[in-house]
C-alpha cells in the first residue's frame, strides 16, 4: 500500500489520524505485523535530547542611533561572529568567554559558553552586548555597550549546521589514564563506556534511507516548530551490516535544522558543559515519520536490539584516525547498563536523555493529534545510504 502526505494531512485535520511514538509502533508491529501496522497507523513520532555542538543562533540587534556596522560583537563577553551585515551576528554554541581559563588547569570546567547564553536568551534574561567597529560614512558609530533581551531583537534564528546524528559511537578508553572528551569522562583501562543516541526513538535511525526526512520537513525544535534546512555537515549515511550482510541499523547521516528561537523554551534548549572538553548546547528535536508504505514502517519499528553502534577507543584510536578493532554493540546492550569488550564487563552510561526523548515524541504526537501540526513533504531528498557518500580527510600539505 502507498499513502500520500495529502491523505495523511486530511486525516490529521479531521482529527482521525492515528499517531504513535516509535516505541508504541514497536509494540504494535510485534503484535500485528508490518502490513497491518502500516494500514492502521499514519504517523510515528521520534525524539532526541542530546548535546549538539554544531548549533548556534543568528541575531539581528536592530540599529542604534547613530548607526553602526558592528565588526566585533560580544555577548556576555562571548565573541559572536559579525563578519556579515551591519547588525547581524552568529553566536555558536561552543564559543567561550574571552577570559575563560580553558584547559590551562586541566581538566577545564567550561561552565559557561554559547549554549548557556542561548538558553539564557530563550529564558528572557538580560544579556550584555558590546560591539566595536571601524566606522564608515553611513555607519559612523565605533563602539557601543548595552543590554538586550530576546524581545529586543528583530530576529533570533536558531540555525544548526549539524544536528541529529543518525547514530553515534560508543566511547571507551584503553589507556592508563582518565581522559576528558566530548563523550564525557572516560576512565582508564576501559573503566566505563558512554553512548549518545536515543536508539529506538532516534529520528534518523528510524528513517535510515531518508525516505520521509528531507528539505523542509517540519519538526519539533527546542520546544517550538522548526524545519530541516539541509542535510547536515558531514552527512555520510550508510547501512551497517554484519559479516553475513544482515542490517545493523544506519549510521552517518546528519541534518541541518532551522527555527525561530523566540518560540522555543528553556526547558528544551540547554547550555551544557563537558569537563576538560568545552561548552555546548543540548537540544530537543522531534521528527514525525509518515508511514507511507511498509518499507517505512519496517524501519520505523526497528528496536534497540536491531540497532547497533561501534565501540571506539577515544584514548588511542579516535584521536589518530585509526579504524576501530572493537565490536559493534546493540542499543539494547548499551541500555542494559553493561557491555562486554574483550572479555571485560564495562558499565555504560548515556549522554542522550532517553526519558526526555520519549517526552518529546509524546508532545509531537499530541501536536499532530490536535490537528495543529501538519506534515510537510520534503522539497528535496538528501543523500541516503545507497549513494555511498564518503568523507574526506584534511591533508596537511
Amino acid at each position, binding site marked *: 500500500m502507498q499513502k500520500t502526505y495529502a491523505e495523511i494531512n486530511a486525516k490529521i485535520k479531521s482529527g482521525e489520524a492515528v499517531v504513535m511514538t516509535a516505541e508504541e509502533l514497536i509494540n504494535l508491529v510485534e503484535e500485528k505485523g508490518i502490513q497491518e501496522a502500516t494500514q492502521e497507523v499514519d504517523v510515528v513520532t521520534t525524539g532526541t535530547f*542530546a548535546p549538539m555542538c554544531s548549533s548556534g543562533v543568528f541575531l539581528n540587534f536592530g540599529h542604534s542611533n547613530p548607526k553602526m556596522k558592528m565588526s566585533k560583537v560580544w555577548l556576555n563577553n562571548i565573541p559572536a561572529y559579525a563578519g556579515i551585515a551591519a547588525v547581524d551576528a552568529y553566536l555558536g554554541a561552543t564559543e567561550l568567554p574571552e577570559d575563560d581559563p580553558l584547559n590551562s588547569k586541566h581538566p577545564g570546567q567550561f561552565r559557561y559558553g554559547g549554549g548557556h547564553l542561548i538558553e539564557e536568551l530563550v529564558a528572557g534574561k538580560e544579556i550584555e552586548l558590546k560591539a566595536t567597529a571601524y566606522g564608515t560614512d553611513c555607519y559612523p558609530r565605533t563602539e557601543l555597550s548595552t543590554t538586550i533581551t530576546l524581545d529586543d531583537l528583530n530576529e533570533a534564528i536558531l540555525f544548526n549546521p549539524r544536528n541529529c546524528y543518525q547514530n553515534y559511537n560508543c566511547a571507551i578508553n584503553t589507556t592508563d589514564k582518565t581522559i576528558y572528551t566530548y563523550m564525557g569522562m572516560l*576512565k582508564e583501562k576501559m573503566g566505563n563506556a558512554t553512548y549518545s543516541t536515543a536508539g529506538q526513538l532516534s529520528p534518523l535511525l528510524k528513517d535510515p534511507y531518508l525516505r520521509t526526512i528531507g528539505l523542509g520537513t517540519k519538526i519539533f525544535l527546542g520546544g517550538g516548530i522548526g524545519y530541516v534546512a539541509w542535510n547536515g555537515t558531514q552527512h555520510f549515511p550508510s547501512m551497517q551490516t554484519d559479516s553475513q550482510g544482515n542490517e545493523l541499523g544506519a549510521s552517518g547521516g546528519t541534518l541541518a535544522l532551522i527555527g525561530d528561537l523566540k518560540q522555543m523554551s528553556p526547558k528544551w534548549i*540547554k547550555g551544557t*558543559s*563537558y569537563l576538560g572538553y568545552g561548552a555546548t548546547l*543540548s537540544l530537543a528535536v522531534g521528527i514525525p515519520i509518515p508511514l507511507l508504505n511498509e518499507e517505512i514502517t519496517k524501519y520505523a519499528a526497528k528496536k534497540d536490539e536491531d540497532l547497533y553502534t561501534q565501540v571506539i577507543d577515544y584514548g588511542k584510536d579516535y584521536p589518530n584516525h585509526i579504524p576501530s578493532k572493537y565490536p559493534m554493540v546493540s542499543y539494547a546492550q548499551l541500555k542494559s*547498563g553493561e557491555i562486554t569488550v574483550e572479555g571485560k564487563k564495562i*558499565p555504560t*552510561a548515556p549522554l542522550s536523555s532517553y526519558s526526555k526523548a520519549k517526552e518529546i515524541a509524546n508532545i509531537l504526537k499530541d501536536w499532530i493529534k490536535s490537528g495543529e501540526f501538519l506534515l510537510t513533504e520534503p522539497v528535496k531528498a538528501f543523500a541516503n545510504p545507497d549513494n555511498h557518500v564518503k568523507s574526506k580527510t584534511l591533508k596537511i600539505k
Partner: protein
Amino acid sequence: MSPQKIVLRYSANISNQPIIYSLIKTYDLEVNIVKANVNPQKEGLLVLEINGDGEHYDQGIAYLKKLGVIIQPMESEVVQNKEKCIMCGACTGICPTKALYLERPSMEVRFDPEKCIVCKLCVRICPMKAMELGV
C-alpha cells in the same frame, strides 16, 4: 543507635586537632572513615560512619561543634537539582557506589543519598551542572 553517616568540614586551623582520636578514645565511638580530604593548609573534609552509644555520640558531636567543625548529615551533601537535570544519565557510569542509577525501563536518573559517599565526581562531570553540593 543505628550507624550515622556524617560529613565534617573544618578550617585549616582545626586540622591539627586529634578529632578522630578523641571520638574513639574520649567518647568511645566506633569511627569508620569513609572519605578523607585533609591538608594542613586547607579546609578539611571527612566523611565518617559512626556507631556507638547515642549519648556518647551526642557528646562527641558537641565536642566537634565546639571546635568549630561544620557537621552535616551526609545525604544533604550532594543533591540532584531536578530542575536542571535532563535525565541524560552521564553520571550513572562514573558513580562509584551506584548512588546515581538509571531506573529501567523508564531510563530516568535516580539518586539514592544513602549510597552516596560524597566523592563529588558527579558534581564535576554533570554536563548540566545539576548535581550540586548542598549546604
